[in-house]
């Protein structure tokens, strides 16, 4: 049947349909809403957070220690019978241990560890905010006076290390409820100590326990030191006081360093060369107050560029008094010349000498007698502030004759090397220029209002500068025309070098009587320019060095195996920068070469693919060719800047002192002392002869200060801080020079460290070896240049032939006027001494020649003893 709806029903039906429709849609909407999230408007921000699970901010990685417990209020009595408790410790970081004086078990070892802790923390700038608290668990016996004796016996510093006693109840409660340590059952039981826990407990400035450590376990002990340092660097309850922060956090006390020292000490018996002598840093006693200062590009506004390459140090007898004076080059604040007074003492000669160049960013220095008048003149390079050439009047007064000499140059200069390339008896000059790594923006390292210490800020991609030809700078060869006038002869001699180079070394590689040039390339392969009859240079890099160092920093030659041929050692810093470690100690990776594919060819631009040496290069001279043997003879080091070759143990073989370490914000690394084992290999001995650890075990120094309350609020290191902050970074040496500073017959080492004080390492070899045998040779040319640069001296003694060439190449970014020092081992006399002058003249002095003195040999004329 058909059902026909009446009109009134149709209306009702329509309404009913609408209602059902409404209900149905509501249900559907709700269901859909549950299943699908409504799409949000397309709001675009920085890359969407599709981060891997391990992604986190590097600074958050070293987050604060967890809060474990809270120490309740307590009040005990210290060894001076003064009340001491939570009130006195408010705002202090403290480390507690539990001992008693009658203990013969672990307590003596614990106390010894606390003594070691005291030695470490006393170097910290904020040690006054730290306390070592030893609580006696035998209070009936350990009265304050007994604790005082105990403290004195263990050399406790009273303000730092407190020994606390009190009532048994108080101490029992502190151990049980405060430190939650296992304690004796009854508080009144006096038959045994309250607790036997050997734990060290770290407590922060708010009496919160942040860590428990097994103080007798070395890794735990090292961690305790790092954690205590972290707590001291935590912004705390009193932010008006200076907060000291280390970058990285363990820079004050790298946990891996003691183990490395111990490992080298264990191998001491395997070191066959003479090593029974030590160096002591006597910079304090010397009177030298020089401090190397650097631009803010290397500190507070850190960016990776060539400003962190540091400065040179050069030595010469500037005033003719027979004592060797030291010229420290400074990046900011002015160079300093220190006059040697003898017995290891110095006085400041800078102002009198007129060589400060305070407004310039200086880099390197070279002493040489350029006008053959018998005194050393001085050339100083700078970064874009113009190099300076000083003429010495013989008394240590230097006159700036740059313009008149024709040596005016405004470039990013680095090393400067004097050598006579045409054998005309006058010293020519090669200036190595790096390349344009700065902007035209000028910043001020001093008072900006007074425009003090201006410098050009660095670009952010300095180390790809070699990919941009417009950033290249040409290094310049100057010919000495006489009368201290120089002329650029780069083009006419064909020595056109436009690479990112920092250093060069002159050497007659092919022994044809004409001095050639080896130029290191910090961002590419090194170059070798062969001197053709003193008229031109030909680039023969590929032929002479088919395998080439990539990233070289410093090159110096010396005869390592006494075969009469000069070998070449090139240090390589840049390849080490690519090595990855655990963020702390790299360990074995440090002495490995990086693989050939460590970086893509787009940045390497290798001269010969697969033939790069990504590490130090030690080229043994075989007469007709050079062979790279660094790995075989243990000459690979880490993060090296430069080196100085000298016979430090006077055994007749030249040793190596290699400066190393990056500075802020990188970790600390040590210098290396490689003792030459009879020309077969080198043996690391820096921890054995006292090169490391440094004076007082220092690994950090104050780098810069921030005002986190006002001007520096946006600096990343001000995060969480609201007061003054001093940031400490790693110490690190850059250049070095080795000479007999105190005239005692053995060789001493002086460094120019980066952004810090130098080291003056005096050797005690002369007191340790009563059979010390040496000869110093000072050369004076007549037809050859007066400094005698380029002269070869050979000594026959004790069946050995010792060969040295006077090239003045005293170290990284440095050239000095020094006598040659020959260590003679067990020899008692010299059989023959032969001098081959650059002029071609050969002088032979027949023996026996007495030892342990300085000979002055004047070309052609006379020999006299000094």
């Amino acid at each position: 049947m058909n059902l026909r709806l009446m009109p009134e029903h149709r209306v009702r039906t329509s309404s009913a349909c609408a209602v059902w429709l409404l209900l149905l849609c509501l249900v559907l909407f709700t269901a859909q809403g549950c299943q699908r999230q409504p799409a949000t408007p397309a709001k675009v921000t920085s890359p969407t957070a599709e981060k891997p699970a391990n992604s986190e901010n590097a600074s958050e990685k070293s987050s604060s220690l967890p809060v474990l417990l809270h120490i309740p209020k307590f009040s005990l009595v210290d060894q001076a019978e003064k009340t001491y408790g939570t009130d006195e410790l408010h705002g202090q970081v403290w480390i507690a241990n539990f001992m008693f004086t009658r203990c013969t078990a672990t307590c003596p070892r614990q106390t010894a560890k606390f003594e070691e802790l005291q030695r470490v923390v006393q170097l910290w700038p904020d040690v006054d905010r730290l306390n070592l608290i030893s609580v006696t668990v035998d209070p009936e016996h350990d009265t304050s006076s007994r604790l005082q004796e105990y403290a004195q016996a263990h050399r406790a510093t009273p303000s730092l290390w407190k020994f606390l006693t009190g009532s048994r109840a108080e101490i029992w409660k502190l151990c049980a409820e405060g430190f939650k340590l296992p304690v004796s059952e009854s508080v009144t039981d006096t038959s045994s100590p309250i607790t036997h826990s050997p734990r060290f407990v770290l407590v922060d400035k708010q009496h919160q326990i942040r860590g428990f450590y097994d103080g007798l376990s070395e890794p735990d002990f090292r961690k305790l030191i790092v954690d205590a340092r972290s707590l001291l660097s935590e912004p705390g309850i009193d932010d008006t006081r200076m907060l000291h922060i280390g970058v990285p956090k363990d820079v004050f006390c790298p946990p891996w360093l003691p183990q490395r020292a111990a490992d080298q000490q264990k191998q001491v018996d395997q070191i066959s060369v003479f090593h029974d002598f030590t160096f002591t840093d006597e910079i304090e006693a010397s009177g030298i107050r020089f401090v190397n200062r650097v631009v803010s590009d290397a500190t507070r506004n850190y960016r990776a560029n060539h400003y962190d390459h540091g400065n040179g140090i050069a030595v010469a007898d500037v005033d003719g008094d027979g004592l060797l004076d030291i010229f420290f080059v400074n990046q900011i604040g002015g160079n300093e010349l220190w006059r040697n007074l003898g017995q290891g003492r110095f006085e400041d000669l800078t102002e009198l000498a007129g060589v400060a160049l305070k407004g310039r960013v200086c880099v390197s220095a070279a002493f040489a007698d350029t006008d053959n008048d018998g005194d050393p003149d001085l050339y100083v390079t700078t970064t874009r502030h113009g190099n300076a050439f000083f003429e010495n009047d013989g008394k240590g007064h230097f006159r700036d004759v740059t313009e008149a000499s024709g040596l005016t140059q405004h470039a990013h200069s680095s090393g400067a090397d004097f050598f006579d390339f045409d054998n005309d008896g006058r010293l020519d000059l090669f200036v190595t220029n790096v390349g344009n790594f700065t902007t035209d923006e000028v910043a001020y390292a001093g008072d900006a209002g007074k425009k003090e210490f201006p410098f050009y800020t660095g670009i952010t991609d300095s180390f790809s500068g070699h990919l941009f030809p417009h950033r290249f700078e040409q290094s310049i060869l100057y010919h000495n025309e006489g009368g201290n006038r120089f002329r650029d002869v780069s083009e006419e001699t064909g020595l056109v070098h436009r690479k990112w180079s920092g250093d060069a070394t002159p050497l007659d590689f092919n022994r044809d009587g004409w001095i050639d040039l080896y130029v290191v390339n910090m961002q590419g392969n090194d170059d070798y320019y062969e001197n053709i009859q003193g008229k031109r240079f030909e680039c023969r890099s590929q032929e002479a060095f088919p395998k080439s160092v990539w990233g070289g920093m410093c090159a110096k030659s010396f005869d390592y195996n006494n075969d009469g041929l000069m070998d070449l050692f090139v240090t390589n810093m840049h390849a080490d920068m690519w090595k990855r470690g655990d963020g702390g100690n790299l360990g074995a990776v440090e002495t490995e070469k990086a693989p050939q594919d460590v970086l893509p060819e787009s940045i390497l631009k290798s001269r010969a693919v697969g033939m790069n040496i990504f590490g130090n290069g030690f080229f043994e001279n075989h007469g007709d060719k050079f062979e790279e043997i660094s790995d075989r003879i243990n000459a690979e080091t880490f993060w090296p800047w430069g080196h100085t070759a000298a016979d430090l143990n006077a055994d007749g073989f030249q040793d190596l002192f290699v400066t190393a370490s990056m500075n802020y914000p990188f970790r600390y690394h040590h210098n290396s002392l490689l003792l030459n084992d009879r020309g077969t290999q080198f043996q690391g001995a820096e921890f054995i002869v006292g090169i490391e650890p440094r004076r007082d075990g220092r690994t950090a120094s104050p780098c810069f200060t921030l005002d986190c309350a006002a001007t520096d609020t946006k600096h990343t290191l001000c995060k969480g801080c609201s007061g003054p902050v001093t940031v400490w970074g790693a110490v690190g040496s850059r250049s070095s020079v080795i000479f007999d500073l105190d005239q005692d017959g053995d060789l001493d080492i002086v460094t120019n460290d980066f952004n810090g004080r130098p080291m003056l390492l005096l050797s005690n070899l002369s007191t340790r070896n009563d059979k010390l045998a040496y000869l110093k040779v000072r050369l004076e040319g007549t037809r050859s240049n007066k400094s005698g640069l380029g002269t070869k001296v050979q000594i026959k003694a004790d069946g050995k032939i010792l060969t040295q060439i006077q090239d003045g190449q005293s170290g990284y970014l440095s050239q000095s006027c020094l006598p040659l020092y020959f260590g003679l081992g067990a020899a008692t006399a010299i059989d023959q001494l032969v001098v081959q002058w650059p002029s071609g003249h050969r002088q032979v002095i027949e023996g026996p020649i007495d030892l342990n003195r300085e000979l002055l040999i004047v070309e052609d004329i006379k020999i006299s003893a000094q």
Partner: protein
Amino acid sequence: MVWKTGKTYIRIKRKRKQTSPWHRGPPTKKLGKVQNLLTPRLSFVIGDPISIPSKVFALRLLNRFLTARKGFSVLYLCFFLSESGCSPADWPFTMHPLRTDDVSAKVKISVPQPYRIEITGRQFQWQVRYPGFDGVLATTDDIITGPNVHVPENTEIVFELKSSDYVYLLSLPQLRLKEIAVPGLDFSLTLRPGTIGEFDLQGDDLCGDLHPEMSGRLIVESRPQFERWLRQQTATTNGNQLD
């Protein structure tokens, strides 16, 4: 409408009156502002194969809206919008630009060979820029994300490496591939991943330690998976790099 119940047929023959909600009146001429709301939802309705019955119902609502008299047209519109996934926040007539997730199911993704992906180092982070659906970089539909990189398998991929500040090294150690990114220069890294999987992607500034923010994954996936992932990404406003 005819309901069939056994052998009895009940025919409800309604006289089509303009008052009926199902009255098919003249089409609504002025859609006005609601057109933008309808278009994506229409394509969504068409594109998503899931829940076909509700889609049919939604289509009918749309049809009714287009042809119903005013009064009911609003009702039909609201129900249609809700059916097609409109949230209360979108009610009633918020203007929306064309949304990728709504059109993605419809729009074909072009993956030309080589497939170029731009990776830019900036403040020690990788910013990864995909060509978008048109397969061409530097167009309005580019997609920016990072630091993980998704690529389809068996496709020639070219990473165009750039830097806005420092020198970076991008490396894929398991694939033994690496290339630099230098401000002012263009470098590229070509690969043709043949294996589905995930690989380490690292970045550093040639100074020793890796930067955690530059560590990610190279995710090689099938073409459908890659397209599905691409559809889920957010488009840029104008295809330009972000600051």
